[in-house]
């Protein structure tokens, strides 16, 4: 793998680290499997790209993309909480609707940002660093800052209440926690992070495309699972940052599999590689525990 493609992989891995944190919030913290992210990733990108082309300030455009995606999360939460639609199904409905909405936002299947200013423009040439390093540093700062903020949030009273809602609704309610409010907040935060990732992706890669969000949920889940199977910890900081590490490792593994000539994979084999990687990450902790149990039994004998 060349340095250039390594840095590119790192950059995408870090951006999807934000997706992983969002997925961690819904799947693990709230116990609310949310597939909205496939749509909200694209929504974040579409809104941001469209606004930038219209000449809006890049930071405002990114903020708008993030808020739009957060609203998509609110819609899913509303369908589930107000009308008792199964969480999975509610999120699939929102995701499906978003596909059309994204096309409407952009007015066409994709928007190019090659000639436009992006959120990276103000940092170009800073410290005399070549562009490709600067981009990686920029997205790393974004991902880690996002991760630290989320970890801090989960350790506050409000965050702890949100974790209680995901763990035991009845207990949460008996302790005065308004369950619905926490679910709304959690889904908005999660999808907001995913939308921010979409906005950053569009600006670093120079386009927004109506199909760019397909499979976002699987990538996010893969990152969460890989991260957590490698770092077993109770610390919120370690857990949240391990989502980012998991995302980067996932991208590196995919990139290596695609680049290894002796394996003979082509870019179209991406989904199979993803599935195998996720399966391995799920199998690994179980095999490790079985092996440890065997070792312990042997010692006793």
């Amino acid at each position, binding site marked *: 793998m060349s340095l250039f493609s390594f840095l590119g992989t790192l950059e995408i891995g870090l951006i999807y680290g934000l997706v992983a944190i969002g997925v961690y919030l819904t799947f693990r913290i709230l116990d609310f499997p949310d597939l909205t992210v496939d749509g909200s990733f694209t929504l974040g990108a579409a809104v941001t790209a469209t606004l930038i082309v219209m000449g809006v300030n890049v930071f405002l455009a990114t903020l708008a993309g993030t808020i739009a995606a957060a609203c998509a999360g609110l819609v899913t939460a509303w369908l589930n909480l107000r009308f008792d639609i199964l969480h999975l199904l509610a999120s699939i409905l929102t995701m499906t609707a978003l596909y059309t909405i994204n096309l409407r936002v952009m007015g066409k299947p994709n928007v190019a940002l090659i000639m436009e200013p992006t959120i990276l423009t103000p940092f170009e040439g800073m410290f005399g660093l070549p562009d490709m390093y600067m981009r990686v540093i920029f997205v790393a700062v974004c991902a880690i800052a996002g991760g630290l903020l989320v970890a801090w*949030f989960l*350790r*506050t*009273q*409000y*965050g*702890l*209440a949100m*974790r*209680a809602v*995901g*763990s*035991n609704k*009845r*207990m*949460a*309610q*008996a*302790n*005065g*926690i*308004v*369950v619905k409010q*926490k679910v709304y907040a959690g889904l908005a935060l999660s999808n907001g992070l995913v939308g921010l990732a979409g906005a950053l992706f569009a600006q670093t890669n120079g386009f927004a495309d109506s199909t760019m969000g397909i499979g976002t949920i699987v990538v996010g889940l893969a990152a969460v699972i890989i991260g957590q199977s490698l770092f077993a910890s*109770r610390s919120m900081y370690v857990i949240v940052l391990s989502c980012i590490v998991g995302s980067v490792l996932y991208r590196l593994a995919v990139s290596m599999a695609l680049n290894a000539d002796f394996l003979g994979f082509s870019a179209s084999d991406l989904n199979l590689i993803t599935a195998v990687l996720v399966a391995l990450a799920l199998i690994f902790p179980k095999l490790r525990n079985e092996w440890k149990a065997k070792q312990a039994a042997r010692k006793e004998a």
Partner: protein
Amino acid sequence: MISCKELHVTFNRGLPTEKLALRGIDLTIPQGEFVTVIGSNGAGKSTLLNTIAGDINSTKGQILFGDRDVTKLPATGRTADIARVFQDPLAGTCGDLTVEENMALAYGRGQRGRLSSALNSKMRKVFREQLSRLNLGLENRLESEMGLLSGGQRQSVSLLMSALQPSTILLLDEHTAALDPKTAALIMDITSQIIAEKQLTVMMVTHSMRQALDHGSRTIMLHEGKIIFDLAGEKRAGYEVKDLLNLFAQAKSDGEELDDDKLLLGA
């Protein structure tokens, strides 16, 4: 003080599966009184407790705490007044969170979720003090995951959690039923201590007639959603389990046989 006036609860109203769970409960519990609630399965004991707590909406009637009407208030709006311990030891705590995180949740009961740190050293000191009352060594396991504790330990922590914040009402829903006799006795002991310390108004649902007579100062029995007798004072002091059983048989208007195994075994 808790007052229920003409309290009715109907489940699945208007559907073929309609069930009248409570049919006109009139009950006034003065501040500081400890009432035990007995009755066979399906009599409405838990429904009554859950309605007072706000988990279930009443179909008709009124609930007052003191002179404040709380009938329309959701469960979360009543938590400043009410502390609860559930029958299922797993229900009162979060298995995924640590002991101290669980206690922090109870410590913040009735307050708005704020963006300040959920735990601090002052809280930890309080938690450690409280846990040491149990003599279970839990004061050294603040950072253990709740799911790693035994059912009895979890129930003990739930009980302590219910007393972390000042409240006036304590609702106990068969909170010792799922425990072994020794742990149940320990839990009942600590319950009595907490109630005495905090001068709480208590409702305790139990399946054991012995427990119902041994604790508190008043006993009510529910049957088919109504209070069929209400026993207090000297009259209650002279009562034995067999007297309760007789009373139960008499009070049942249709005179059907007492066939509830649990009720008899619990005696």
